[in-house]
């Protein structure tokens, strides 16, 4: 672990504590999730994907995920994975805890 990661993680945690707020609505979760996904995975062609939002009441986590569209323009539910981003957002403070691509 180098000094840069120390500085970045420390600053992020401090500012995260100062400015965190609960995510109560699906619209807020979608906004945060889309921003996080498009910021980190800018190389992806998002026109090929449909975006969905789910809430897991067991873990209190919002899940924003992208499913691949078929040739007809609608979501192809036969696809496993698909390469679209999957973002998990903690409800009580809005922290993005997972931001990775789906397999």
């Amino acid at each position, binding site marked *: *672990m180098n000094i840069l990661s*120390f500085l970045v*993680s*420390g600053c*992020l*945690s*401090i500012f*995260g*504590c100062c400015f965190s707020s609960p995510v109560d609505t699906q619209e807020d979760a979608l906004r945060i999730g889309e921003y996080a996904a498009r910021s980190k995975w800018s*190389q*992806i*062609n998002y026109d090929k994907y449909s975006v*969905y939002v*789910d809430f897991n009441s067991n873990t209190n986590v919002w*899940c924003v*995920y992208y*499913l*691949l569209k078929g040739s007809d323009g609608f979501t*192809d*539910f*036969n*696809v*496993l*994975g*698909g*390469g*679209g981003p*999957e973002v*998990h957002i903690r409800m009580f403070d809005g922290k993005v*805890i*997972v*931001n*990775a*691509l*789906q*397999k």
Partner: protein
Amino acid sequence: MFEPIQSPPPPPSPSQPPQNFFSAKSTALLVFAAFLLLLLFCVMYCCGYYYCTRNTAHVAVPAPPGPDLQNFNRLPEHRISKSSIDLAAEAFGRDYAGRSINEIREYAALILKNGGEYYYDHVIAGDVSRAALSTMGYRSGGHIAVAGVHTHGCSDVDYIGEEFSLADKRWSQDNNIPLYLITPSGILKVVDPDGTERAIAVEPPLPRDPGYDGASGRIRKTLDRCSGGPGGRRPQ
């Protein structure tokens, strides 16, 4: 005519504080408060650093040490019936997990039921991040699809490799059958349509990606071929 009357300055009273007393006290308090704030900042910083370094998003279950991948690149055994769905999924893992890691692509298949026997068939070779698996044609009749099974290729820190993606869970929900997964670390697990997951113990272990560190349960090294390096592929 009249000279202004100048009264002499009053003698300093010993009980009266000097004029700069309050400003000095305020300064001292200010310095002390700044020190406390700095201390609090440092504590929060260290706590945050500790939290960030100890809580990673993808912590996988450590896998037992597995054999080399080269020993698993054998031809698949087609239509060897098994007595349970789990065993059929394990057979698929033995035949395709090593190949999936080496070829950096997903493999998927349906587990079909014929009488009391189970076997995998309808094998699909996908790409680095996807495989399309349809149950169409296997929903009724003599050979019914009772589950799906797929691999996740090699370890890559950018991908959700050790867990079911939400697209995987959605597939299980929509088709109303369980979906099995062989992870890059060689773990066999299954998710049911209601979202419950369980891991299945297999012996001997399934092949696993050498880039996966079984001791720590983390991806030790993302191979260039997996991460878009030389020969690597990324979804566009």
